[in-house]
């Protein structure tokens, strides 16, 4: 026996042109899989962003509130490179993280470094202020309305997956973010530089006493984290518009994800990023009214039951 579409799926019949609807928990499977995929795409951004935050927090113990602004800067650098110099998407995908990474290095070198000896709260306040300044600056020049960024030719168009129409670019976002997450994870878990980072996260003084230039490592790490945010930003540019406030809309969710994953846990940030993205997507299917808060509800529960986070080590 087939049910007709519920009211909010009224469009589905014309969209997919089917007569028989396969149901999953009382939801058409097409809607279910479609939202699963959209959740995965959002999760891709969450994962890359929370990964950067986790790396920075792990080593620097700074809660980088400028992360959203750095994400926005990544998108803007791509946009400006295109409109000023005609630099295409692929080159921008490389250049935007480098440019924003360098500004991150400058921020660490000249400002954040001076705050390490103070309470961690100062790092948070500084980066929060910095985010407001950066976003305010961009808003002054570009206003709050978004600037469009064209999808690169190679990735435009879409494929019909049977259960949904997938724009190729969004599929690319999932693949690219997976590559970046796995690459970063391998860098941290499997290389010598990664061993320095892990060791310095545990005991920076001792690592420095071994002859390793830990202050330089901190600078590099902040640059890497900012670069990751910028990478997410330039990837987001063709999907969302390039706007000065695009980061501040997203960053609070990403903070919640880092808390759920466990502050400073690399694997936790990646897995939780994808997981909560998907969960948020599925909530849109089952109970759309809750989709904006589901991540925060999870965060509250995790904080109560397991304060160190799902992947965090107990302190």
């Amino acid at each position, binding site marked *: 026996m087939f049910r007709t579409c519920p009211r909010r799926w009224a469009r589905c019949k014309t969209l997919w042109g089917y007569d028989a609807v396969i149901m999953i928990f009382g939801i058409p499977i097409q809607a279910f899989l479609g939202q699963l995929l959209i959740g995965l795409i959002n999760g891709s951004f969450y994962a890359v962003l929370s990964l950067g935050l986790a790396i920075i927090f792990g080593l620097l113990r700074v809660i980088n509130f400028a992360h959203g602004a750095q994400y926005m800067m990544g998108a803007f650098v791509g946009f400006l490179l295109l409109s000023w110099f005609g630099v295409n998407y692929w080159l921008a995908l490389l250049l935007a993280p480098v440019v924003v990474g360098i500004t991150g290095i400058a921020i660490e070198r000249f400002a954040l470094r001076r705050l390490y000896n103070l309470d961690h709260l100062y790092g948070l306040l500084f980066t929060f202020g910095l985010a407001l300044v950066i976003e305010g600056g961009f808003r002054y020049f570009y206003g709050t309305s978004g600037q469009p960024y064209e999808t690169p030719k190679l990735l435009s168009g879409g494929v019909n997956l049977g259960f949904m129409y997938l724009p190729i670019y969004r599929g690319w976002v999932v693949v690219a973010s997976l590559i970046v997450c796995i690459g970063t994870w391998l860098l941290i878990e499997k290389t*010598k530089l990664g*061993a*320095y980072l*892990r*060791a310095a*996260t*545990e*005991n920076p*003084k*001792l*690592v*420095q*006493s*071994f*002859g*390793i*230039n*830990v*202050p330089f490592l901190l600078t590099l790490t902040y640059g890497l984290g900012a670069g990751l945010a910028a990478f997410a930003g330039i990837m987001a540019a063709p999907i969302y518009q390039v706007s000065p406030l695009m980061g501040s809309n997203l960053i609070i969710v990403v903070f919640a994800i880092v808390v759920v994953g466990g502050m400073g846990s690399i694997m936790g940030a990646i897995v939780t990023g994808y997981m909560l993205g998907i969960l948020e997507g599925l909530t849109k299917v089952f109970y759309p009214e809750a989709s904006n808060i589901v991540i925060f509800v999870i965060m509250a529960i995790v904080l109560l039951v397991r304060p160190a986070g799902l992947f965090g*080590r107990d302190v």
Partner: protein
Amino acid sequence: MTDKQLLLSVRGLNAWYDESHILHGVDLDVRKGETVTLLGRNGMGKTTTLRAIMGILRKRTGEINFDGQDLMNRPLHHTARAGIGFVPEERGIFATLSVEENLMLPPVVSKSGMSVEEIYTLFPNLKERRDSQGTKLSGGEQQMLAMARMLRTGVKMLLLDEPTEGLAPVIVQRIGEVLQTLKERGMTILLVEQNFRFASKIADRFYIMDHGMVTEGFDVSDLPEKMGTLQDSLGV
């Protein structure tokens, strides 16, 4: 003894933890190839002396010369490059690194260091467990690992903080053998040790610390006649 070349010379070393003044002018010398032990009761500044020499403790004044180089105004990561390796009391084995990663972590500072094969010959346990998580090792193995990773780097001098603390007698004996081997290879060692029996077997010279100062220094040959004062000042 005096004909041996001076490697480490500390003069008038003062050091502070925040506002508390811990070292009040420490003077000590260590010559090449010597093993020198700092003795003293708890809280007299032995560990602080090592941390101040290493530069982990930054709030310090005085003079520290090592192998002809002034160490006072250098950043922490230059001390190891000058040729000093520090093995902390808590051993400092990293939980997020495997045994082998722990071993390979400190950068090599000179070619005179041991090869990984030599280290595994000296510490067969570490070879067996090289893929384990660093902190899954027993206390004794962690101590061995903490020493082993410094030997790979080719440092000229080791600062060892209580290497036998909390370890079973058979492990303490093993650590004694390792230190003996190192001495034979010409390693210079500055040792902080509560286990006086252990220290008396491997040290060439002793300094006694009291309230942040070195109050006395003597050779191992003078040990029998010093036993009386030692018993008073250390309670050994």
